[in-house]
């Protein structure tokens, strides 16, 4: 569920229709300015604050979603 929402945000911000949840953000043409918009969108649409360093280090939809789910489970 979270992965689907993040995938949709990436698709919108990267202007990309087809990509895998395991594709790396930077290999898809991402850069810092786009990641800042994604961070804002995750905050607005999912109500979750994800630090920028996590978004950069875990830069696939799958790993970001897993990280968020893990954080939610532990709180």
């Amino acid at each position, binding site marked *: 569920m979270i992965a689907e929402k993040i995938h949709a945000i990436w698709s919108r911000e*990267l202007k*990309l229709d087809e990509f895998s949840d395991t594709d790396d953000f*930077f290999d*898809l*043409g991402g*850069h*810092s300015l786009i990641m800042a918009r994604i961070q804002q969108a995750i905050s607005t649409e999912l109500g979750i604050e994800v630090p*920028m*360093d996590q978004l*950069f*280090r875990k*830069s696939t939809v799958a790993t970001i979603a897993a990280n968020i789910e893990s954080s939610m489970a532990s709180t």
Partner: protein
Amino acid sequence: MTQTEPAITTASQIAPNAIVPEDIAENIKRFGRDGFVGPIKLYEPDEAADLIREIRINNQDTSRALYKNSVNYDRHFDIPELAKHVTHPTITKYLTAILGPDVLNWRTEWFPKFPGAKATEWHQVRDYSYANGKPQLLPTESDWNAYIDITVWTTFTPATRERACMRFVRGSQRHMIFDEHKDTQHGRGDGYDVAHANTGFFGYDFADFMIDPQWRPSADDVVELEMNPGEAVIFTASCVHGSTPNLTERETRFAIAARYVPTHVRVYPDQDSFSAHGATFDLSNYGSIVVAGTNEFTHNRIRTKDNHGVPFCSAPGNAAEGNAS
């Protein structure tokens, strides 16, 4: 070049006390002839990918940056990966083979080329007075015929013709094709964001400095240098250079330039601040870094630690007394 016998007017002489190891002697010879040499591998591609990721992460926190600026000057003071990069042993090996044993790093700059970015026009820089009319470098022991300022431009992504690669006019360091001291209509004002400047040279139009407005390089002399992630090109900015555009739809090219001078060169002479590319830079906490040899001069501000308090990995005997921090 159109001239048959080049007049020696700009940088063309290796320092008389240069230390040239045998394994790079041929490359130094090539540098002396062409004004640039590369690609030279500094990092494996995987290592370069890891570095750019960390640089991007650290770029999010600018609280320890030396100054706030959209051209990202001197981020080696707050980004540890860049603090280490400027003293890379392969870089210092080449620098001492060109400039002599005592070398300062005086600036770093970022050169991202985002998808769709236009080409960087031909330019030729000697003392950087194009920026605001004042020289930023002033040699004290040699004239301008010697190499005064060396740039090491390292790409952390592929730098291909399509994605923007550097290009040079081979041998042009021997000719004055641009004169930075000419007046210019663009660039020297402040308060603009270079990211949105639609000029040929990051807010400036370098064609304004062309001595002969009809000058065009001979196609035979133009070298487009494609590079892999982790590779560097070492050049004198007196060699006319520029870049191809980024024609890709979603592939950013990211490179970082580190600039070096021999210790006898005065950096930002008699200046407490300077303006360039729409920004003003307060030099209160600025200092050059001794990356090789020793500094026997007192005319430059020297920094021995980054903004985290970590010493730069430079040579022992780091600074002349009285001006180090």
